[in-house]
């Protein structure tokens, strides 16, 4: 037992609102306004985790996002969250948390035993061992992985949801401390659209912890509430609490995470409100008032439970009404920590203040402390903390006043808590996410940002190294006034004043010496979470990991979930000492987002589940669903795959659909094909350039199949284009290629041939396309259409006609992707469903059969028609596809890709070329993607000749068919090859890829 409740007038907890909560199964009590950490301390809980490498017992060290140790698992089941910092979890009634470390238990930890061998586990020890025997590494790794890691990943789906909110503001103020509030006030008064975000559950920042602070002659907290009242009264100002700005990007885009409901009991959470909200804020100007964080000093066993920063203890006392201990040692090298000593003493703790400075703080502060009952020891330092799972005392040393060495041994003091203050570290992260660099300020002993900030960013308050409130406010006032000038606005308000107080210089000290060579004494931790001790940094440097990035990576310094908020500066300082360089020269490591961890769900926002990516449907969707279609994803489109009847397998369904179509009539939804209206005097010329084949002689009323190549000569898209008028064409593209092709046309037109008078308008969504396919398709259409002469001679294959189908204006294309007599009826998509149903009705007497993509694939494969993306893979030219007929080599203009077709590699005779395959066993349907060998020798590395691109059972032919690409295939018809998949070989004969109706009689019927 150590921590306990005391009453403080400044406390922000609500003593009238007790909260029951559970920690590792133990029922405990806290109050509304507590954090889990403050409540745990109040309940005397000390041991809260085991360290990651040595399994050393650990307790709470900080009071906010800087906390390295108190990583807990919050709640269970769907609501569980791993690795939350107890110092940031707001307490609510019924909260249930567990520790994340310690195996088998927190109090008896095996790693703890391993820890006794810690001297043999220096940084990078795993790089130096576990190397043999080679087979053993997986075993070692298993152990290492088990040992590492904190919380447990959730396994249940997330019951809550998240969203994004975009802001466009004049000024974003990051940080709601005194300086941030003043910046927002001035911006707000100037009429600027202002947004202030603060990490905590209420604004005020350090003012919430510092009871003695005064602004404009009144208690700081009173001034804070006045500011908040004013800001709330301004319609142009928004204040968001529980909102952490965690990343800064180009042109002042700031991402901030708001914890909307995390502070509420699970039962009290509103299912209509997001758990967390990601704010994406575009600001003309950003004011960084993100403040600073106190860092501890580095000394022996400074990780024992009960060791804390002075600021944390002061905060727990004044803000939460929790005294961290009855007998407290506080070591400092600066004046500020005297406040903590004073407050703790006033609250009844026995405080010994160990000031590493021989002369101590400014007189008034020493006097204030003494009169509060604080015992002062000047010129001393703590060499080593005593106690294992809880602090029991410490051994002091007398310090040399000038050099950081030990002058003499010091007394042993008993204590239940040890605090230290190593000065403040400015929170410069956001300034540095996007090119900014902090600089070392010797005065403030911190990496700080320049007063003037940089383009679009002002820096206000202690982020600039102004530790004293008065100086911080003055700097803020100046910086914000300058910003307002930039907006052409004036400053409305006098700079708030806080009394200037005399200060004694701080002692330049990071690692408190213990009189022994580094590494010989007790471990002195720099980074608690990653178990990095001062000696480890020295070792890294000794092994020539001298770049600060190397030091960081070799020791893992600052790699934890606290992002080194407590440890980095101490680490850099100790590295500098080891390197014999000034800190400024050593510099910092790179600051990366996120400032504090961000929930994946919040990043994803509403782009999950059914809105992860659009599902695009055609107008006939409900008709397909009604007929039991299964769907295939093609691009973003949902296309009917096949229409099983009863218990049919896909194979059975597809056989039925194929036969019905070849023998009578089938119907398919072709609406997903891309459609582009191409019009202008130069439309023809443009088509000539963009397609590989010729378009000069295509008359109105006619259609033509076109191949599109990229400049590299490879097939990128294909489709049928109809000539509507001499200067007007209706282009179709593949389903997946629609958007790509439209941009392709636009880019070539705008960048290369702006002189061509032609325009492209997407009509993909306007037209619904119903393909009526099969010998009976004419008969079906005749029942629906009277104003088009459908007779074979009047309406030929590859013609199109305008008319009325089932009373609806339609464009009918007589084109075929199946080799059958076929018509594609294009109507205004609002009529799409109607036309589909009309066709079904009209076809009933012929047993009309709806079919999906699978049957479409079989029918077109029987004809040897390619599918771009399936039979091609970006490495196939038209020649490779035996489609030389679609290449107009004589066209005057060198169409896209033409030149590439004559390069040495593209004219090679032994390129992979499209062929057909007949397996010797007609029942064998080859795997699409099976590889082809010339001989039956498949010993690796085997000589692969090509692969199967399309393969089906053809019910119409009563055997299997396959399309493949084969080296030199065009010359190999009749050869026998061996098709290989998963160790099985199937002999097959190379044949023409046109399996059905080579003469094309059927489609011309």
């Amino acid at each position: 037992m150590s921590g306990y409740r005391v009453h403080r007038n400044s406390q922000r907890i609500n003593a009238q609102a007790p909260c029951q909560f559970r920690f590792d199964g133990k029922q405990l009590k806290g109050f509304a306004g507590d954090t889990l950490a403050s409540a745990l301390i109040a309940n005397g809980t000390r041991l809260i985790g085991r360290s990651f490498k040595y399994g050393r017992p650990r307790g709470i060290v900080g009071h906010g996002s800087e906390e390295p140790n108190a990583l807990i698992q919050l709640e269970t089941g769907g609501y569980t969250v791993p690795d939350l910092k107890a110092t940031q979890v707001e307490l609510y009634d019924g909260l249930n948390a567990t520790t994340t470390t310690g195996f088998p238990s927190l109090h008896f930890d095996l790693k703890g035993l391993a820890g006794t061998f810690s001297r043999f586990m220096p940084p990078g020890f795993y790089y130096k061992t576990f190397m043999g025997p080679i087979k053993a590494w997986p075993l070692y790794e298993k152990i290492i992985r088990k040992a590492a890691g904190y919380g447990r990943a959730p396994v249940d789906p997330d019951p809550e949801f998240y969203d994004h909110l975009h802001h466009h503001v004049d000024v974003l103020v990051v940080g709601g401390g005194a300086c941030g509030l003043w910046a927002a006030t001035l911006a707000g008064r100037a009429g600027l659209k202002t947004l202030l975000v603060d990490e905590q559950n209420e604004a005020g920042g350090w003012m919430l912890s510092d009871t003695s602070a005064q602004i404009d002659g009144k208690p700081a907290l009173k001034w804070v509430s006045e500011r908040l009242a004013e800001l709330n009264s301004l319609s142009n100002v928004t204040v968001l609490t529980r909102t952490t700005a965690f990343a800064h990007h180009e042109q002042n885009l700031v991402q901030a995470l708001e914890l909307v409901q995390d502070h509420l009991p699970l039962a009290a959470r509103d299912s209509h409100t997001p758990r967390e909200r990601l704010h994406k804020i575009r600001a003309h100007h950003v004011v960084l008032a993100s403040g600073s964080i106190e860092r501890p000093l580095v000394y022996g066993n400074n990780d024992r439970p009960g060791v804390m920063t002075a600021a944390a203890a002061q905060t727990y006392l004044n803000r939460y009404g929790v005294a961290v201990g009855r007998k407290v040692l506080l070591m400092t090298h600066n004046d500020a920590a005297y406040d903590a000593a004073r407050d703790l003493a006033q609250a009844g703790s026995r405080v010994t203040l160990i000031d590493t400075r021989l002369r101590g703080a400014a007189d008034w502060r020493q006097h204030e402390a003494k009169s509060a009952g604080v015992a002062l020891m000047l010129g001393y330092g703590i060499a080593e903390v005593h106690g294992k799972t809880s602090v029991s005392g410490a051994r002091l040393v007398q310090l040399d006043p000038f050099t950081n060495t030990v002058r003499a041994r010091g007394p042993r003091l008993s204590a239940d808590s040890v605090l230290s203050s190593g000065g403040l570290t400015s929170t410069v992260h956001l300034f540095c996410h996007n090119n900014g660099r902090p600089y070392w300020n010797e005065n403030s002993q911190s990496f700080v940002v320049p007063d003037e900030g940089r383009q679009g960013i002002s820096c206000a308050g202690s982020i600039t190294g102004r530790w004293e409130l008065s100086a911080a406010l003055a700097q803020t006032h100046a910086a914000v006034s300058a910003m307002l000038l930039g907006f052409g606005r004036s400053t409305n308000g006098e700079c708030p004043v806080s009394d200037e107080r005399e200060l004694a210089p701080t002692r330049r000290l990071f690692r408190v010496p213990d009189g022994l060579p580094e590494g010989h004494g007790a471990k002195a931790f720099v980074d608690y979470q990653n178990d990095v001790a001062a000696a480890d940094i020295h070792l890294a440097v000794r092994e020539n990991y001298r770049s600060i990035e190397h030091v960081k990576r070799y020791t893992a310094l600052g790699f934890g979930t606290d992002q080194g908020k407590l440890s980095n500066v101490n680490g850099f300082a100790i590295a500098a000492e080891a390197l014999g360089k000034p800190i400024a020269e050593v510099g910092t490591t790179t600051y990366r987002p996120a400032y504090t961890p961000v929930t994946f769900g919040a990043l994803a926002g509403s782009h999950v589940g059914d809105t992860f990516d659009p599902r695009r449907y055609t107008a006939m969707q409900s008709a397909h669903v009604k007929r039991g279609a299964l769907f295939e994803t093609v691009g973003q489109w949902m296309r009917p795959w096949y229409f099983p009847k009863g218990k049919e397998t896909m194979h059975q369904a597809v056989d039925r659909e194929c036969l019905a179509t070849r023998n009578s009539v089938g119907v398919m939804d072709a609406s997903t094909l891309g459609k582009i209206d191409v019009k202008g005097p130069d439309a023809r010329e443009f088509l000539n350039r963009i397609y590989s084949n010729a378009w000069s002689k295509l008359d109105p009323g006619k259609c033509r199949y076109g191949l599109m190549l990229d400049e590299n000569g490879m097939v990128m898209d294909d489709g049928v284009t109809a000539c509507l008028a001499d200067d007007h064409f209706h282009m179709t593209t593949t389903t997946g290629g629609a958007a790509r092709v439209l941009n392709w046309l636009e880019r070539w037109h705008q960048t290369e041939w702006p002189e061509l008078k032609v325009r492209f308008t997407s009509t993909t969504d306007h037209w619904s396309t119903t393909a009526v396919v099969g010998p009976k398709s004419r008969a079906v259409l005749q029942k629906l259409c009277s104003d088009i002469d459908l007779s074979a001679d009047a309406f030929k294959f590859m013609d199109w006609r305008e008319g009325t189908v089932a009373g609806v204006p339609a464009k009918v294309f007589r084109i075929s992707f199946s080799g059958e007599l076929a018509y594609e009826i294009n109507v205004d998509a609002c009529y799409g469903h109607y036309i589909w149903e009309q066709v079904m009705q009209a076809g009933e007497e012929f047993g009309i059969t709806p079919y999906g993509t699978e049957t479409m694939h079989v029918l077109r494969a029987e004809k040897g028609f390619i599918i771009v993306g399936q039979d091609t893979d970006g490495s196939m030219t038209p020649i490779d596809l035996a489609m030389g007929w679609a290449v107009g080599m004589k066209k005057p203009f060198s169409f896209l890709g033409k030149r590439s077709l004559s390069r040495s590699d593209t004219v090679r005779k032994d390129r992979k070329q499209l062929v057909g395959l007949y397996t010797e066993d007609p029942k064998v349907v080859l795997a699409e993607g099976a590889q082809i060998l010339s001989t039956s020798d498949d010993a690796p590395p085997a000589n692969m000749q090509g692969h199967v691109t399309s393969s089906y059972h053809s019910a119409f032919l009563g055997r299997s068919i396959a399309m493949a690409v084969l080296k030199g295939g065009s010359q190999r018809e009749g050869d026998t090859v061996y098709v290989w998949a998963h160790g099985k070989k199937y002999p097959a004969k190379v044949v023409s890829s046109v399996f059905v109706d080579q003469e094309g009689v059927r489609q011309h019927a």
Partner: protein
Amino acid sequence: MFQIHCPHCGATREEEEFSYAGEAYIARPANPEEASDAEWGDYLFMRKNTRGWFWEQWQHTAGCRKVIAVKRHTGSYEIAGSWTLAEGKEHYLKESEA
């Protein structure tokens, strides 16, 4: 994430409205048939890939669908300006002369 000014819409819009369209002002050989394989290969594949100020194309796909010229620093990501392809070309040519 960038904000890019579209000279056609006369407005500054977020990157999500645009799609990147690569290096600007790559000239297609006037007579491809006369270009050597090397010349053709250069046009097809070789790129400046400048570290520094760079002329590139963005297409305002969610807006006016126009391709525009943007001068951007590929190191600092600073954007000097954006122009219609025609306007941009003048600036571009002036710079390449200089």
